[in-house]
């Protein structure tokens, strides 16, 4: 892993069109600005982890726990 030291308002370029800027450092928190083309998805790592966890949980759901169609309120009123 490449490790760089930066000060506030200094930035890092990744390729030609992605820029990571350190905006503010306050105690343990760092505010980071990201300039990237709209086609580049940028998300916090926790988001990916939460989605991965939920995918695995959804795959552990048991067929016998899924409500049958006729127990749905909409189907009943139809």
């Amino acid at each position, binding site marked *: 892993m490449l490790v760089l030291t930066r000060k506030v308002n200094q930035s890092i370029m990744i390729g030609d069109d992605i820029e990571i800027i350190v905006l503010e450092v306050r105690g343990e928190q760092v505010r980071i600005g990201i300039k990237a083309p709209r086609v580049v*998805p940028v998300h916090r790592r926790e988001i990916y982890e939460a989605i991965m966890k939920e*995918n695995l949980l959804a795959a552990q759901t048991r067929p016998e726990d899924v409500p049958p169609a006729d127990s749905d309120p909409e189907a009943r009123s139809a």
Partner: protein
Amino acid sequence: MELSTTRFGTIEVEEEDILTFPEGLIGLPLLKRFVLIQHGEGSPFRWLQSVEEPGFALLLADPWWFVGDYQVSLSDQDVASLGLEEQTPKWVYVTITIPPGKPHAMTANLLAPLVINGLTRQGRQVILDEECYHTRHPLLSEMWRSLQQTQAAG
């Protein structure tokens, strides 16, 4: 072709019904080919059964059945990667988690729906706006909220 599955036994699937997720699902990059299995007649639930792994089937549902005002706005990258144009039919499903024995506690991941191009059968799990959605919406209370909003609007 015949497909053997852990939950549903051996099922007959047509080659053209196979959905391809070129990047897999988030956190599960290795499984790329799936078929959709309806849970029962008239049910909003589907199973996304892996073609490659008989034991892997993810529970999905039609989000609008539960959350009438669900908004899916795709990023440019998602649209490009799915090859979607304005007229392309697209299918959207959300993953559902039901804790064992507790159907009333089921939750839906509204943050990361699965979007499928209905023409190419190519799919992708996308990430929507974190401000609006998260990974564990309790479905029964979402249904209630959406119903009340519809009534208030009507």
